[in-house]
């Protein structure tokens, strides 16, 4: 017996036991279903969000009873009517949409050259530096970055103090629409660059050289060769930036100072200030529909493959 156990090490016996257990739990005839079993945990975790959507939809159909401050039992579409007609929400909606359009345009103008230099530079050190500059704010988080902007742009902040040495100012740089848009552009540049860079990588250098050797200057090369070829990346970047901006909370809250709210801030206020969960849910649902529609269009236009889950391209 002793001889047997030395010839047959412990790790083997553990493996055998594990295999036997695996066979017990999931017999070979279930093998075709194994991939679905392995997917199950991810499906369940993501399922939380689906249940969340159902809860939001349910909550949006109950009106807050002002007398008892409870949600009514009966179903109605009144919350949606208020969300779509109240001038407060119309203003906030317009402000968010206009902001999202402006931020998308400016972000693309800044992200395109960044991605271009990132992809085309010959220097590995420069490329690494540009990547670090890109990732660092992305990993630091929005609140900490907004805090940095408060220190820079405040009435007694770095910028105003520096300007006062020159005898100008002080200017009110914070808590206005432009501060919010600026903060949003800064937040969105990394997303846009990361969507654009793979599209630019796919354009061979020779294509640009060919245009130049045929006499096109660099502006015409960009206009007629690089930008059209990078269009899938541009569209993807634009729609990602647009939806992220439209639904942002932290930047309008911190840099807008309460008077430049976006839709997400209005939703938060409905839940935590006026305690009107029904109206808040209706606003959330409308925003989700607007946001998902935009992302859906993006995925249809540039393909789901952009987000890189696909293993086989056979389907």
């Amino acid at each position, binding site marked *: 017996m002793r001889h047997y156990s030395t010839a047959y090490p412990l790790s083997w016996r553990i493996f055998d036991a594990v295999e036997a257990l695996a066979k017990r739990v999931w017999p070979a005839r279930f093998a075709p279903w194994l991939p679905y079993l392995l997917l199950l945990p991810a499906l*369940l975790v993501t399922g939380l*969000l689906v249940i969340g959507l159902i809860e939001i939809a349910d909550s949006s159909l109950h009106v807050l009873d002002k007398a008892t401050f409870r949600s009514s039992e009966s179903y109605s579409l009144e919350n949606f009517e208020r969300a779509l007609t109240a001038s407060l929400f119309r203003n906030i909606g317009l402000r968010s949409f206009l902001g999202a359009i402006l931020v998308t345009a400016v972000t693309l103008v800044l992200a395109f*050259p960044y991605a271009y230099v990132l992809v085309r530079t010959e220097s590995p050190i420069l490329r690494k530096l540009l990547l670090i500059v890109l990732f*660092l*704010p992305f990993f630091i988080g929005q609140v*900490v970055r907004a805090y*940095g902007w408060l220190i820079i742009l405040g009435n007694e902040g770095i910028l105003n103090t520096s300007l006062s040495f020159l005898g100008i100012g002080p200017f009110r740089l914070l808590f206005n629409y432009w501060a919010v848009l600026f903060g949003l*552009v800064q937040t969105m540049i990394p997303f846009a660059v990361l969507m654009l860079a793979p599209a630019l990588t796919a354009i061979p250098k020779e294509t640009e050289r060919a245009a130049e050797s045929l006499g096109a200057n660099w502006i015409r090369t960009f206009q007629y060769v690089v930008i059209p070829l990078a269009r899938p990346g541009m569209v993807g970047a634009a729609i990602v930036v647009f939806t992220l901006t439209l*639904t942002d909370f932290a930047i309008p809250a911190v840099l807008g100072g309460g008077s430049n709210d976006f839709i997400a801030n209005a939703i938060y206020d409905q839940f935590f200030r006026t305690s009107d969960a029904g109206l808040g849910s209706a606003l959330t649902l409308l925003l989700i529909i607007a946001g998902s529609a935009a992302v859906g269009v993006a995925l249809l236009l540039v393909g*789901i493959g952009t987000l890189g889950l696909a293993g086989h391209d056979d389907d």
Partner: protein
Amino acid sequence: MTDRSKAVVLWLLVGFSVVTLSAPTAVIIGASLTSGKIVTFPPDGLSLQWYAQILGAFDLRAAFLRSLYVATVCTLIALPCGTLAGIVFAKHRIRFRKGIQVYLLLPFTIPLIGSGVGLMLVFGAGGLLGSLWPVGLACCAINLPFMIWAVAGSANALDPDLEKAAANCGAPPVQTFLTVTLPAVMPGVITGALLMFILALNEFLVSLLLVDSRIVTLPVLIYNSIRSIITPDLAAISVVFVVVAAMVIAILDRLVGLDIFLKSK
């Protein structure tokens, strides 16, 4: 319209982006080192007093530990969920592939405020609001595609013949998985886990919706504080985020190379 003008225009725009991206970080590091009582410019002098201060500040330390806990819970849930799903997507032919893919990308297509409000209602109905682990679960649910993407990338690179060879040599399925598949996808697993950890550590909006005043996480605490008065101790604690972010970037660079994000499909 020479190459010179191209370089000037490109570099002006890139330079503006670099300054804009880096300015808040640089300023926070600077502000944390001031010896004054408030954040002023130019600084009153250099000192590490605010770092000593945050070590003694109970609420800051407690909030930081809570954020670490949330990030750990999130990563521990994401590890099995994302690894298995990533391997399945790269290795197996499954029915309804497109549909499952769209479903698993829901966390990216639903706006963050929508996911947060939904989870708040779900956890509220389940009586889970007020405890901390559901915040970690929520962070996992909203960022899971990152983990799946990272693992699928590694699994795609694994030659399927290796697994067949192992099976051919007599290795049963579990052993093949543990000794061939799992080690091969490890870079992806670590990349994904790092992303999940740092994104959960920083997660603000979903935290804000799910925590109450007794269990605020660090980003929520910073948010609540900067709305009143800006003090340098907040800058010092923010530097902790900067350091963690820098560490994650360094590890990612060593592990998979930052250039991976530039590759075209």
